[in-house]
C-alpha cells in the first residue's frame, strides 16, 4: 500500500476483526454467526451492533442469526443469498472447512457474497488456535475469490473491496487476514466514511441481485441435478465471470485509492525498482517482508523487493508478472501452510505455473527467466521477523539455494531450514517499544489498551498493541507488546528488544526471563514490595547479572499496596500505568493530568467513587516509585528454579521443560513425536503456585466425609487409608486419624494438599461440613496464606504419594469411599473453581485405569490436552485414561468408532482363544471367556488371566497366537467415555450424539453443561437458559434450553442421568456407576458452574443446590434396566420447590444484568422460565409414573 500522506489524527485504533467486521455489518442485511477463534469477535461485534440498533448502509438493522455450527451458518447464508439479500458470515479453521460444501454451491451459482476469515491453523497432528493459511488454502478450489489483507487497515479496506466487487462480478469473495496477528492486533487505521462505502457499492448490482432472488412471483429453479450430457458445459459457463473478476477488483481498488489515497494493486510490489531477488508472500508476513526489503535496499543497497499478493483467486497471471521487476533473477515464494505430499505449497505452485504460462505465451519480459524456490514460514502464528526475511533474501543469493525450505524453525530432521543471521531490528526513528508481563485478569492488558488510546489521542503518535496469552485458564500469564512511533507502524511481529520492560506480577521474575528482551539501558519497572535494596536482593542471580550486563535502569513500586490503600483492591493497573507514563516520558507536559483525564473518560460513566480512587492511586504512584541502584556485581545466591524438577522423565526435561521455560521456539523438529502423540502425566511436574491461600487440614475437626476431595476441581486434595506402620517414616507434623469405617478398620486416614497445584478456589472449604463448635467459622479445612503452610503441606503431600493406594477391590462404591480411588486427572489448568473438572476427576477415579476418552473440542480439550503440560496421568501400574480429541463436531461419532474397534478386537480375541483353546490351559480359557462383570474384582482377575494368557501364548509359535497376544488386552473391558460441553452436545455435535445414542452401542457420554460456549468466551448455546444474558443473546435468552435428557429418554434404551455434584454428590456417583455398568448408551448431563455465569465460583456449590432446589436443574436417572425389571425406569432424585427460581437467578450476573437493565422484560422471562421449569417437572413426574404393564 502506498503512503497515504494522512496524519495520525485521522486514524483510530482498532483491530482487524473490528475493521473487517464493521464494513461487513454496514454492507449486509443478513449475518449468520457461529463462534470460533479467532473470528468470534466479528460475530460478537455484529450481534452487539445489532443489539444496540446500529444500522447498515441502507438504514436497517441487519438480521443477525446464530447457528448451531459453521455448516449451519453457511446453509443459512446460502438461503439468504438465494432470496436476494446481502449476506455475510465470519469464520476460521475447521469452521471454514464445514462451510466448504456451501462455498462450492454459492460460487457455482455465481452468488454475490463475502465470507470474512481470520485465517487459522487447521487441526492436524494437534489443534492450534493460532494463525496460518492452511484453512483458506483449503478453499482455493471452491470458486470463491480469495482476497488477502496484510494489515488492520487493509482488513477494513479490502473488506469493502470484497463487498463491492462481489456485487458487480457475481464472484463470491473469501476475504481473509491472519488470525491473531491481524485479527487481534491493535493498530491505527483510517476509518472508511459512509460516503466511501456508498461510492463503491453499486446500486444497480444490488437491484440485479434482488431480481435474481427466488420469488414465487417470478419462479425459477436452482440446484438441478445434471447428467453427463450437460454438466461439463454448464460448469464452464461461469468462466467469463472469473476472467473479468481481477479487473473488477483492480477497478474498485482504484476507486478507493482515488477517494482515500490508499492505493492497492492485485499484486503490490515494494522494493528496489531493479530488484534481482524478490519474495512473493501474502498476509501479515508481507508487511514484515516489505519493511525488511525497504530497509535492506535503503540501508545496505540490496536489490531486493517483495510482491504482496492480495487477490489470490482468481489468479491474474498478467497482473502478477506485471508486478515483478523485469530485473528479477530469483524468487522465493513463501507459503504459510503445509501440504505434505504435494510438489510444493500452493502459492509456490501458482507462481511457478504463472511464470511458465507467461513464458509460454510470450508475455514474460524478464531479462533472464527467474529461478523460483518455495518455503514455509509462520505456521500457527510462529514468529516471522525481519531476520527471517533477510535469511530468505540471503538464500536467494546463494549458488545452490534450497528448492524447498522452512524459515523460523530448526529442522534438524529434514535439514531444509534456513540458518538465521544476527537479529535484524528495523525501527523507524523515534519508535518506543515496551513489553509488559502480567497475569491474566489483573488488568495489565486492559491498561495497555488504554495506554495505547491515551498516547494515540494525546500525543498524535501511532500505536500498535499485540497481546500474548498462555494456554491455561487459571493463573495465566500475559505479555503485552506495545510500540509507539511518530510514523505508521508496520511490524507484525513481537518486540525483540524493548526500551521499557515492566513486570506487573513479581513472582513472574522467578518463572520467566523477564529481562530477555530488555535493550541495553532499558527502563525496567517492577511491581515489588520492599525497599530498593530489598527488591534487588529478591531478584534471582541471573536476573541481577542480566540487569548489570545491560545496565538497565531499574525501578520498583509496590503497586499492590498502593492500589490497596487507594481502595482499588488488587487492581494495580492504574499504578503501573502511571509509573509507565512517568518513566517512559512518552506523554509530553503534565503526564499526571493527562492520566487523570483518561481515567475520567474511562471510569466517569461508572461512578465518581471509582474515579476518585483511581485519582488517589495516580497521586500515590509516583511518590512510591523508587529507583533501584545497580551494584557492580550480582549478589543473589538464589536462582530461578528449573521449569521442571530434575526427577522428571527425559522427555519432560528435554521438551516440556523447554516449553515451560519459554524456549519452545528453540526446540528442533527432532524433539517432537512425528504423529502428535504425547506422554501423559506431565502436569505434576509444573508447580505453578498461583494461590495466595491454600487449605490446611484441621484434622481434629474432620469427619472423613471426603467431600473436599470430591469437589476439588484440580485434584489437589488426596485422601487415602494407610497402614499405621507405614507412617513410621512420616515427616514431622504429618497428620493422620484413625480410619472411620469397616472397610479399612484399623488403618489410618490421611488427607493431604498439594500446595503449588492448588488454585485457591475455596470450594473444599465451602463444602466442608465439619465446623468447630466453639468457633463455627473454622472448619476442618481452613484457608491460610500459602507462605505460612506450603512447606509443611508439600512435605506431607509428597510423603502421602509414597504410600500405597487403597486396594481397589476393597473400596466400597459409595460417595464417601470412592474418593479413596486415586484420581488420574490432576492439576489441570482449568479455571480456578471449575465446575467441570470434578466430574472428570471422578470418572478417572472410578474407571481411569481402563478408560478411553474421546473429547470434543472445548474447555475440556483445552485443560485436558493443551501443551505444555497435561493432567491425565497413570497409576502405579502405568495404566490410565487414553485421551484423544478429534474435532468439535464429531466427538460422539469418534467415540463410537473407538467403541466399535474395541468391540471388534475383543470379539477377535475371543474367536482366537477358541481357535487356540486346545493349546491353552483349559481353565484359563474357560475363565477368560466366562468373565462378564465389570466390578473391580472381576477386572483385576481378568487382567491376571490376560497376563497368564500372554505368557501361555509366548510359547506358541503361530500367527494366530501372535495375533491374539497383540489384542489380548481387549479381553479386559474398555470403558469408552465421550466428553464435551453443551456447545458440542446441544449444538454442533447434536446430530452425531443423537445417532450414537440411537446406535445402542456401549458408550458413556458425559456432557458438562455450562449453559454457554465457555471456551470461546460465553456465546449462547441451545443449553443457555431463559433470562440469561450471553454473547449473541445480550438482552437475555427468551427461548427455553433444550431438554436433552428427555430427548434421549425418548429412545427408551438410553441410560440418562441429570446430575449436579454440588447439589447431591451421592446421586452423581450413583449416576456414574449406573451409566458405566449399563451395557448400552449412557448419557450423563452434568451441571457445571462456570465463570461465564458471573459470580464468585467459591459459591458454585451453593448455586448448584439452588439450581436443583429451584427446579432449574432437575436431578433424575433413567435406567432402561429398571424398565425390563418391571420397575419405573425414571427416578427423580430431588423434587424441586425448596427454592424459587428467582433466588437462583439473583445470584448470577448473567441473569442480574438483564433484570437490572430491563426489569419488566426480566419479569416476563422469569415467568416464562418458571413456567418452563414447571412444565419440565410435570413431564418428568409423568414419565416417572410410567411403568411397563406386567405381563399376565
Amino acid at each position: 500500500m502506498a503512503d497515504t500522506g494522512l496524519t495520525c489524527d485521522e486514524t483510530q485504533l482498532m483491530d482487524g476483526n473490528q475493521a473487517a467486521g464493521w464494513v461487513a455489518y454496514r454492507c449486509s442485511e443478513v449475518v449468520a454467526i457461529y463462534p470460533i477463534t479467532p473470528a468470534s469477535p466479528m460475530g460478537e461485534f455484529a450481534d452487539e451492533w445489532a443489539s444496540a440498533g446500529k444500522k447498515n448502509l441502507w438504514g436497517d438493522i441487519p438480521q443477525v442469526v446464530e447457528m448451531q455450527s459453521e455448516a449451519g451458518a453457511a446453509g443459512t447464508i446460502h438461503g439468504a443469498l438465494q432470496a436476494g439479500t446481502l449476506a455475510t458470515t465470519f469464520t476460521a479453521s475447521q469452521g471454514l472447512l464445514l462451510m466448504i460444501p456451501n462455498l462450492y454451491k454459492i460460487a457455482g451459482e455465481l452468488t454475490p457474497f463475502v465470507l470474512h476469515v481470520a485465517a487459522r491453523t487447521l487441526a492436524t497432528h494437534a489443534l492450534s488456535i493460532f494463525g496460518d493459511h492452511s484453512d483458506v488454502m483449503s478453499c482455493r478450489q471452491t470458486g470463491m475469490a480469495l482476497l488477502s489483507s496484510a494489515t488492520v487497515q487493509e482488513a477494513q479496506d479490502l473488506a469493502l473491496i470484497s463487498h463491492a466487487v462481489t456485487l458487480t462480478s457475481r464472484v463470491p469473495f473469501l476475504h481473509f487476514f491472519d488470525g491473531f496477528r491481524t485479527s487481534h492486533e491493535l493498530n491505527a487505521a483510517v476509518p472508511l466514511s459512509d460516503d466511501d462505502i456508498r461510492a463503491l457499492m453499486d446500486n444497480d448490482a444490488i437491484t440485479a441481485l434482488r431480481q435474481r432472488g427466488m420469488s414465487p412471483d417470478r419462479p425459477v429453479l436452482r440446484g438441478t441435478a445434471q447428467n453427463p450430457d450437460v454438466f461439463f458445459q454448464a460448469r464452464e459457463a461461469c468462466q467469463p465471470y472469473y476472467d473479468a473478476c481481477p479487473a473488477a477488483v483492480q477497478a474498485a481498488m482504484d476507486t478507493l485509492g482515488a477517494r482515500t489515497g490508499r492505493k492497492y494493486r492485485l499484486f503490490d510490489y515494494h522494493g528496489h525498482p531493479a530488484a534481482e531477488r524478490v519474495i512473493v508472500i501474502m498476509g501479515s508476513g508481507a508487511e514484515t517482508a516489505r519493511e525488511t526489503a525497504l530497509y535492506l535496499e535503503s540501508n545496505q543497497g540490496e536489490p531486493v523487493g517483495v510482491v504482496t499478493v492480495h487477490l489470490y483467486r482468481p489468479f491474474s497471471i498478467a497482473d502478477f508478472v506485471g508486478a515483478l521487476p523485469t530485473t528479477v533473477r530469483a524468487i522465493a515464494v513463501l507459503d504459510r501452510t503445509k501440504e505434505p505430499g504435494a510438489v510444493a505449497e500452493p502459492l509456490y505452485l501458482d507462481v511457478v505455473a504463472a511464470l511458465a504460462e507467461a513464458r509460454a505465451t510470450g508475455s514474460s519480459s524478464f531479462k533472464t527467466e527467474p529461478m523460483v524456490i518455495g518455503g514455509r514460514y509462520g505456521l500457527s502464528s510462529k514468529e516471522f521477523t525481519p531476520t527471517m526475511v533477510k535469511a530468505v533474501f540471503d538464500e536467494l543469493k546463494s549458488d545452490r539455494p534450497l528448492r524447498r525450505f522452512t524459515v523460523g524453525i530448526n529442522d534438524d530432521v529434514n535439514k531444509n531450514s534456513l540458518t538465521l543471521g544476527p537479529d535484524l531490528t528495523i525501527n523507524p526513528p523515534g519508535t518506543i517499544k515496551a513489553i509488559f508481563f502480567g497475569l491474566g485478569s489483573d488488568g495489565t492488558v486492559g491498561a495497555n489498551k488504554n495506554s495505547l488510546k491515551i498516547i494515540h489521542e494525546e500525543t498524535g503518535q501511532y500505536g500498535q498493541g499485540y497481546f500474548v496469552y498462555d494456554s491455561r485458564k487459571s493463573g495465566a500469564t500475559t505479555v503485552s507488546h506495545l510500540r509507539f512511533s511518530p510514523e505508521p507502524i508496520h511490524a507484525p511481529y513481537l518486540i525483540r528488544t524493548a526500551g521499557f520492560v515492566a513486570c506487573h506480577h513479581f513472582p513472574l521474575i522467578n518463572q520467566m526471563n523477564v529481562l530477555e528482551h530488555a535493550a541495553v539501558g532499558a527502563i525496567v519497572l517492577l511491581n515489588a514490595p520492599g525497599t530498593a535494596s530489598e527488591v534487588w536482593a529478591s531478584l534471582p542471580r541471573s536476573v541481577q547479572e542480566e540487569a548489570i550486563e545491560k545496565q538497565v535502569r531499574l525501578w520498583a513500586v509496590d503497586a499492590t499496596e498502593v492500589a490497596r490503600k487507594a481502595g482499588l483492591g488488587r487492581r494495580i493497573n492504574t499504578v503501573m500505568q502511571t509509573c509507565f507514563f512517568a518513566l517512559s516520558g512518552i506523554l509530553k507536559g503534565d503526564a499526571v493530568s493527562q492520566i487523570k483525564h483518561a481515567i475520567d473518560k474511562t471510569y466517569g460513566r461508572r461512578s465518581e467513587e471509582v474515579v476518585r480512587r483511581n485519582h488517589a492511586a495516580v497521586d500515590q504512584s509516583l511518590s512510591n516509585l523508587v529507583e533501584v541502584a545497580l551494584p557492580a556485581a550480582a549478589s543473589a545466591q538464589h536462582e530461578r528454579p528449573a521449569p521442571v524438577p530434575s526427577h522428571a522423565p527425559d522427555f519432560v526435561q528435554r521438551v516440556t521443560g523447554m516449553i515451560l521455560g519459554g524456549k519452545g521456539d528453540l526446540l528442533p523438529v527432532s524433539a517432537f513425536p512425528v504423529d502428535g502423540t504425547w506422554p501423559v502425566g506431565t502436569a505434576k511436574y509444573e508447580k505453578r503456585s498461583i494461590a495466595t491461600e491454600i487449605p490446611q487440614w484441621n484434622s481434629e475437626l474432620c469427619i472423613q466425609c471426603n467431600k473436599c476431595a470430591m469437589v476439588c476441581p484440580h485434584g489437589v486434595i488426596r485422601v487415602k487409608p494407610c497402614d499405621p506402620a507405614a507412617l513410621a517414616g512420616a515427616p514431622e507434623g504429618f497428620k493422620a486419624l484413625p480410619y472411620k469405617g469397616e472397610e479399612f478398620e484399623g488403618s489410618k486416614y490421611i488427607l493431604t494438599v498439594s500446595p503449588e497445584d492448588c488454585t485457591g478456589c475455596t470450594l473444599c472449604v465451602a463444602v466442608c461440613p465439619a465446623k468447630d463448635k466453639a468457633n463455627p467459622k473454622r472448619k476442618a479445612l481452613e484457608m491460610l496464606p500459602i507462605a505460612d503452610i506450603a512447606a509443611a503441606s508439600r512435605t506431607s503431600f509428597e510423603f502421602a504419594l509414597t504410600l500405597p493406594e487403597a486396594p481397589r477391590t476393597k473400596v466400597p462404591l459409595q460417595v464417601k469411599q470412592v474418593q479413596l480411588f486415586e484420581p488420574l486427572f490432576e492439576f489441570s489448568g482449568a479455571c480456578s473453581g471449575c465446575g467441570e473438572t470434578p466430574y472428570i476427576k471422578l470418572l478417572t477415579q472410578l474407571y481411569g485405569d481402563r478408560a478411553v476418552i474421546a473429547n470434543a473440542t472445548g474447555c475440556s480439550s483445552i485443560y485436558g490436552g493443551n501443551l505444555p503440560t497435561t493432567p491425565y496421568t497413570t497409576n502405579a501400574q502405568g495404566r490410565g485414561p487414553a485421551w484423544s480429541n478429534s474435532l468439535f463436531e464429531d466427538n460422539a461419532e469418534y467415540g463410537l468408532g473407538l467403541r466399535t474397534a474395541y468391540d471388534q478386537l475383543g470379539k477377535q480375541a475371543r474367536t482366537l482363544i477358541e481357535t487356540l483353546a486346545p493349546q491353552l490351559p483349559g481353565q484359563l480359557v474357560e475363565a477368560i471367556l466366562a468373565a462378564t462383570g465389570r466390578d473391580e474384582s472381576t477386572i483385576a482377575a481378568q487382567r491376571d488371566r490376560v497376563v497368564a494368557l500372554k505368557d501361555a501364548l509366548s510359547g506358541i509359535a503361530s500367527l494366530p497366537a501372535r495375533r491374539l497376544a497383540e489384542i489380548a488386552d481387549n479381553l479386559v473391558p474398555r470403558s469408552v467415555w465421550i466428553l464435551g460441553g453443551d456447545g458440542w452436545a446441544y449444538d454442533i455435535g447434536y446430530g452425531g450424539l443423537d445417532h450414537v445414542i440411537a446406535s445402542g452401542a456401549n458408550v458413556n457420554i458425559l456432557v458438562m453443561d455450562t449453559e454457554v460456549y465457555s471456551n470461546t468466551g460465553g456465546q449462547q448455546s441451545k443449553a443457555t437458559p431463559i433470562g440469561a444474558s450471553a454473547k449473541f443473546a445480550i438482552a437475555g435468552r427468551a427461548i427455553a434450553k433444550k431438554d436433552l435428557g428427555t430427548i434421549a429418554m425418548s429412545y427408551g434404551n438410553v441410560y440418562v442421568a441429570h446430575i449436579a455434584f454440588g447439589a447431591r454428590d451421592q446421586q452423581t456417583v450413583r449416576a456414574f456407576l449406573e451409566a458405566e455398568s449399563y451395557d448400552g448408551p449412557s448419557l450423563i448431563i452434568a451441571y457445571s458452574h462456570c465463570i461465564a455465569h458471573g459470580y464468585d465460583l467459591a459459591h458454585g456449590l451453593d448455586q448448584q443446590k439452588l439450581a436443583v432446589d429451584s427446579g432449574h436443574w432437575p436431578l433424575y436417572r433413567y435406567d432402561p434396566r429398571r424398565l425390563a425389571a418391571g420397575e419405573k425406569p425414571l427416578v427423580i432424585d430431588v423434587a424441586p420447590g425448596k427454592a424459587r427460581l428467582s433466588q437462583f437467578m439473583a445470584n448470577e450476573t448473567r441473569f442480574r444484568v438483564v433484570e437490572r437493565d430491563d426489569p419488566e422484560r426480566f419479569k416476563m422471562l422469569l415467568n416464562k422460565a418458571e413456567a418452563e421449569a414447571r412444565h419440565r417437572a410435570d413431564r418428568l413426574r409423568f414419565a416417572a409414573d410410567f411403568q411397563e404393564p406386567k405381563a399376565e
Partner: protein
Amino acid sequence: MDLSTRYLGFDLPHPLMPGASPLVDNLDGVRRLEDAGAAAIVLHSLFEEQIRQDRRNAERAMETGADSFAEALTYFPGLDHFALGPEAYLEQVRKIKAAVKVPVIASLNGVSAEGWADYARLIEQAGADALELNVYFLATRFDESAEIIEDRVVAIARQVKQSVGIPVALKLSPFFSALSGLVRRLETTGIDGLVLFNRFYQPDIDIEALEVRAQIELSTSSELLLRLRWLAILSGQVRPSLACSGGVHTVADAVKAIMAGANAVQVVSLLLKQGPGALTQLRDGLSRWLEDHEYESLAQMQGSMNLSRCPNPAAFERGNYMAVLQSWRT
C-alpha cells in the same frame, strides 16, 4: 364520611396507601392498587448500595477470566450494553406517574453523600410527586457514637431537601435513643414528613447448620404499638406530617394510628397477604367505623389520642413500663 387528610402537602381523600414494597414492581400491580382506592402510591426503594453492588458484581464478573486466555478474552457482553444504574427505577417512576392519577411517592436508600442528593434529583426529574428517604444505619462500629449517626441523618435530610423541590419524607428506624430530639433537629432541615418506622431483616440462627440466616417476616398488629407510642409523642409537637408504617392490619389498627396522630397510614403486609382489595376493605371499614362511632370526619379523630390530648399521657411515657409488668403479673 369525610376521610380526607393532608400528608406531605397533598390533600388526600383518605389516609390509606400501600407502603414501599414489591407490590408496585409492575404497572398492573400499581393500577390494581389505584383501582383499590390507594390514596397515593409509595414505590419500593431505589437502593444505591444495590446498584453499586450489582455494578461491582457485574464488573467483577466481566473481569474474571478476561484478557487471560486467547480464545476467550471476555466471557460476557460488555457492560456498556446494560443500564446498571438507576435507569430502570427511574423508568418505573415515569411509567407509574403516567399510569396513575394519585400522588406517586418514590423511595430512596442512599449510601454515599453524593448518592442521596444525586439520586433524589434524578427521581424528581423522573416525575415523582414526593420522595421518601429510607434512612437507616446499623451502628455496628464501636467508635461510632449516637451523635455521629444522628448528624448523618440530619445531613442527609438537609442535603436532599436542598437538592429537590418536591416534598421529602424521612422513614426512620425506631432505634434512636433520643428520637424526639432528633426529630426536632430534622425539622430544621425543612423536611415535610416522617414515616414511623422502618422494618428490617432480622438475623436468626440455624442451630443445626451453625449459620446465621437473615430473614424478614410479615408484620403483625403487635408491631403497631411501638408506632402508636411515637406517633402520639410527636403528633402535634412537630411540623412534618406523620405516616404510620408497620403493623396496620385491621380497621381498628388504622383507627389507632390515626388517633395517635398519623396523617397517613401505610399498609404492606396486609396487601401482600390479601391483595389490593384489602385496601378497599380497610378504607370502607374505616369509614363505617367513623360513622358507627359518630365522628364527623377523620380530621376530628386525627391526633385525638396523642400525648397532649389523651386522658392518660403517662401511659405513653416511661411510667407505663411498670404498669405493663404489673399487669403481666396479675
